[in-house]
């Protein structure tokens, strides 16, 4: 059962990659980046889950037993913040590109030849 979840997560990651590689609209590419980012974050959270585990909140009246791993939750929060910064920058660049080129289609934005 849990293996299915992991594989679904990786499938989500691959959907994001497909979106980045195949789509021609800049906004869709950014959405692809966001999808694959969230797939990795989700996988990190799922890796830390244990069966019938409870949330890792320490309070005075609760017994500490069978908590899920708390470290990935802290780490994923950091990675979400990084994702926020990247996404905001990408969107700002995309808006500037629209201002200059008047299009979101990357096949028309190809003045640089690699």
């Amino acid at each position, binding site marked *: 059962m849990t293996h299915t979840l992991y594989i679904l997560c990786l499938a989500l990651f691959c959907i994001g990659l497909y979106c980045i590689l195949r789509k021609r609209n800049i906004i869709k590419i950014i959405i692809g980046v966001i999808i694959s980012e969230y797939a990795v974050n989700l996988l990190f959270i799922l890796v830390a889950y244990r069966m019938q585990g409870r949330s890792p*909140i320490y309070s005075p009246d609760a017994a500490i037993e069978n908590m899920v791993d708390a470290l990935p939750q802290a780490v994923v929060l950091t990675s979400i913040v990084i994702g926020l910064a990247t996404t905001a920058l990408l969107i700002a660049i995309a*808006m*500037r590109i629209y201002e200059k080129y008047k299009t979101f289609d990357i096949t028309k934005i190809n003045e640089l030849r690699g």
Partner: protein
Amino acid sequence: MSKEHDRGMSVIVKTVTRLTVGLILLYGIYILSHGHVSPGGGFAGGVIIALSFIHLMLAYGKEAALKRIPSQALSFFEGFGAIMFLAIALLGFTGGYFFLNFLPKGEPFKLFSAGIIPLCNIAISLKVGAGLFAIFIALVLLKFEGENK
């Protein structure tokens, strides 16, 4: 109708906003100040505080929000939050280690406890709240410039 109602959304949205925006701000401050005893903390609190201003901006238009907190103040708070966080980390050198929790820890589950962690939360929330709202304003203003051309 006063002049205030010319811009922004409809009266219903504005009334609801007027009633809830204070609560949202207060909730953000609660999350931020109890970050060391319950789930939450600087980042979540800062995001909620920024959301309350974004809420105001969506309902009343950008002038109403920018009148309460101008963009110079935003960039000041952003830099100040970062410097404060760094200063707290550097003060740890007084105890011999970078990032050392040098204040007395207090009792668990009390509001005034956990040493430097509440101070760090305040610094982070300043940085995150100001930063998030500044990102929102930057994106929105960029779009306005593009439309005017």
